[in-house]
């Protein structure tokens, strides 16, 4: 998708400097946030979708939080805190997750649907009815490091 198509759906990005990757059909935002760029993480498993074994086939925030935590993202941050290590932000409407962004190498990035991923964004840039709002930020502390830096 072109930059104009991305900004049509995410008007808060207009006028901002951000990175835009080529389109990638193979993974979604949750897979991207967890570092898997070859699968589409969504229940149920099969028919082109991946879902880790042992977790309920639902899209609740509780279930996905448990999945994220077993990948080492165990420290919950406040929205006012900046992650020190890698982190994942969960966007949700009510109790249903809608989207994810990841913090790595000092910046937030996110895979938009089946299209591009954007980098160098703020979490607020993607808050819109389609994705809801950020309801949780989970951080994976760097080895020997701390999880958060107060803003």
């Amino acid at each position, binding site marked *: *998708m072109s930059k104009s*198509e*991305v900004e049509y*759906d*995410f008007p808060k990005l207009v006028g901002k400097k951000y990175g835009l990757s080529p389109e990638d*059909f*193979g993974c*979604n*935002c*949750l897979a991207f946030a967890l570092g898997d760029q*070859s*699968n*589409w993480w*969504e229940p149920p*498993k*099969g*028919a*082109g*979708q*991946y879902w880790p074994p042992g977790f309920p086939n639902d*899209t609740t925030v509780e279930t996905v939080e448990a999945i994220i935590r077993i990948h080492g993202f165990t420290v919950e941050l406040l929205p006012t805190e900046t992650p020190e290590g890698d982190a994942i932000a969960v966007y949700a409407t009510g109790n249903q997750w*809608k*989207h*994810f962004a990841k913090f790595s190498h000092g910046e937030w990035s996110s895979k*938009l*649907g*089946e*299209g591009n991923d954007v980098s160098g964004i703020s979490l607020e840039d993607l808050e819109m009815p*389609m*994705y809801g709002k950020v309801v949780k930020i989970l951080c994976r502390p760097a080895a020997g490091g701390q999880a958060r830096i107060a803003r």
Partner: protein
Amino acid sequence: MPLYSEQLHNKNEWFTPKGDVARPSLEWNTRHIALGNQPFDFSWRTEESNADECRIVVHAGKLYSAEFAVSVDPRVAGIRERSRRLSVEFDALSKRWHRDTRHVSLISEKTLHPAYLRIIGMGDSAIPLLLEALRDKPAHWFTALRSTTNADPASTSVSLSMAREAWIRWGIAEGYID
């Protein structure tokens, strides 16, 4: 089941005809006519055609000519014929669906879009169009394909690329696409 089976009257191993006899204008692909690695000019014409059989005469330069009797699977040929009449509507619905859901993170939400549901509502007439769309560009057509075919050749595929390949293989084997 393949769309047609070939009976070569003048068998020649280097010539492998591929075609879709359900189309009014049969589309031969020069990739399939080659001497060694050198493609050359050829022509063809349909001599007779009915619901069960189509006779085709092919001339490939001065080197080769052959006549083929091609049998048609009437069920699949009928579906392909109906699908052509829906192709304009399908393209419009497909574009609308892509535009409106391109950034949605969940396939289960993408497939609830009214345009997607309308495509499913086309029934088996949508099968060739869905498979062609999937062949030409990756997209989440798997739910619509499962719904319209009552088949699931990608049931064990855990990646989208695997699922896409499985469906395209299935579509070719069943004769829905070339």
